[in-house]
């Protein structure tokens, strides 16, 4: 992590990284879990792309491959009760926050077994029970909402419960979203109102086909923008989950302790196109390969191998496990009932018959369907 004034740290040579001391204290099991979490996202996204190509998934679809370390490392720095919000590239965040893959997959399939009963699709994953507040399609518009979540946390803790503010909200946005007025309004508001909000810009260098330098001032160091809003800005290497965690832990802890906003320029890269129909003419193969050679999964693997007894055998088992989990998610999605107009088209605009749907809990209407055949009434 470097603050606004220092220069960006280049990614160090692989394997020989000097990590922050807090990494050395982490139990091996924790690191292995992060590897699994990232692998799950990657596998989920690979299968998502296949399903999209097979026309099982419609709408638009933006995959998270390459950015896995950001969601996994950042959420590891949060507490479960901290609210989180993001944009439309949300599959990785949803999974890292703990929503079961099957609810995400079924959502993209447009089936009623999805986390929003198949109404939102790829861009609009939600999981209230895990304090995951979406998944939003309008670029930048989620950031003020994130400020509102931070405001609510503080208000509930301080005014209603008459204690100290305990929670931190985290709002993600893309680098393209930096150019939306909503982002700037939210930054100023968070600064003025002392909101416990960590704004994380997933800076993957492109907004669709527009490279950051073409669309954004100070594209070389966007954390400089934080200064204008009276908050600290940081640059974090988003291609390395251990660095993400170590840096974000400090940033989040500080935001919590000070009850103040922070801004993070999270340097990352999306390996694939913006959406499923993007020939990526705006960048070179060499550039893509350069980032892929610093793959966050490989980097963690290498660290694990260098510092623990984690074996290829263990990795194989993990891989098999993850594949099975994603396969099961696809099966769930495929078998989940199609939405019917009578049940789905006219509802959920206001309070309605099916009751509030709380994320990963099974909606009432599915409980029956989930029972083994022998128990069905």
């Amino acid at each position: 992590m470097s603050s606004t004034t220092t220069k960006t740290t280049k990614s160090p040579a692989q394997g020989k990284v000097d990590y922050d001391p807090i990494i050395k204290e982490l139990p091996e099991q924790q690191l292995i879990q992060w590897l699994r979490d990232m692998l799950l996202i990657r596998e989920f996204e690979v299968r998502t792309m296949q399903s999209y190509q097979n026309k099982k998934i419609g709408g638009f679809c933006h995959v998270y491959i390459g950015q896995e370390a950001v969601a996994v490392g950042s959420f590891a720095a949060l507490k479960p009760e901290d609210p989180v919000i993001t944009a439309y590239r949300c599959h990785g965040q949803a999974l890292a926050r703990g929503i079961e893959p099957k609810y995400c997959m079924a959502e993209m399939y447009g089936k009623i077994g999805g986390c929003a009963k198949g109404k939102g699709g790829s861009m609009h994953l939600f999981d209230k029970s895990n304090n995951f507040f979406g998944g939003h399609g309008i670029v930048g518009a989620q950031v003020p909402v994130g400020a509102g979540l931070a405001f609510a946390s503080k208000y509930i803790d301080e005014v209603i419960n008459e204690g100290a503010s305990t929670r931190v909200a985290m709002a993600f946005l893309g680098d393209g979203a930096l150019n939306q007025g909503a982002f700037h309004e939210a930054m100023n508001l968070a600064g003025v109102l002392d909101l416990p909000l960590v704004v994380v810009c997933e800076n993957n260098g492109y907004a669709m086909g527009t490279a950051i330098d073409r669309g954004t001032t100070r594209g070389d160091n966007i954390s400089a923008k934080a200064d204008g809003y009276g908050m600290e800005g940081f640059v974090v290497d988003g291609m390395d989950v251990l660095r993400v965690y170590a840096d974000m832990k400090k940033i989040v802890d500080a935001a919590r302790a000070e009850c103040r906003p922070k801004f993070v320029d999270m340097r990352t890269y999306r390996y694939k196109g913006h959406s499923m129909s993007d020939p990526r003419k705006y960048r070179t193969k060499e550039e893509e390969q350069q980032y892929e050679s610093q793959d966050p999964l490989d980097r963690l693997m290498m660290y694990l191998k260098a510092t623990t007894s984690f074996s290829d055998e263990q990795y194989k088992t993990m891989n098999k496990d993850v594949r099975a989990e994603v396969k099961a998610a696809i099966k769930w999605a495929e078998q989940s009932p199609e939405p019917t107009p009578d049940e789905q088209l006219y509802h959920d605009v206001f309070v309605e018959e099916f009751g509030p749907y709380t994320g990963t809990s099974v909606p009432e209407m599915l409980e029956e369907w989930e029972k083994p055949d022998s128990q069905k009434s």
Partner: protein
Amino acid sequence: MANLTLVQAINLALIQEMEDDDRVIILGEDVGPNGGVFRVTEGLHQRFGSDRVVDTPLAESGIIGSAIGLAMAGLRPIPEIQFEGFLGPAFDQICTHAARMRTRTRGALTVPLTIRVPVGGGIHAPELHSDSPESFYAHQPGLKVVMPASPYDAKGLLISAIRDPDPVIYFEPKRIYRAFREEVPEDEYTIPIGKARVVSEGDDITIVSWGASVVQCMKAIEASDRSIELIDLRTIYPLDIETIEASVKKTGRVVVVHEAPLTAGFGAEIAARVMEHCFLYLEAPVQRVTGFDTIMPYYKLELEYLPEAERIATAIDHVAAY
């Protein structure tokens, strides 16, 4: 004459207007070398360069606001908004500046602006990428709102919009961007703003529609053995009540079809006007076939939401049997 899709017709109109008038410039997100999300501005950047085909930051309020400034200074900007759902951040600029500048300055300043926006459902997109917000803008005095339903009209209407001295929102029904081709003259021509088109003549029933729904209406009419007159509004505001009135006085029965939700959809305005102008001629209450008063659903249910030919056919039967 060339056989063109709606996208190609728009592209041609843009090229010709840019060639004729160097006050015409295009701006928007990835409209340059990438040619825009729907490739409507394909080839324009190569042809006219970065000065006239401007890739902007991802900032709709900034795009429309600065286009208003360009227009007030005498240029003819054509900003593109990628999807109707992203008009939100620009809504303020459109309604508080573009629409009011002429009145506010008592005619001293005008805003000759054409905002191009893909609109409507039917392409398997999620909400925010499938909506039909035309009545929001029709409700704002000071804006003209048009929506072609064919390649021929697309070209002529766009040229009119660009040359119009006032702000025009030019909605492009994305479902029929490439759905069919039509003979489009090579030469420039205009379709007047504020003038509807009688697509097919008939004596029993009048159907009024616009945008991609017109195609659904044509399907329903083909399948029906009644004599039905189909009016494609082409311009939503200012409304061509004369064409509607003439038809309804002949048929006495009206069906209005649009994708937007029922309540306060532009069909409500048409129904009221028909009542005011043709009350004594009406044989049946005006029927509306529209989207529902719910959020546009994800793709699995989108055809249930949209006013497809079957639902229109049912309305035809209802209004005929009344």
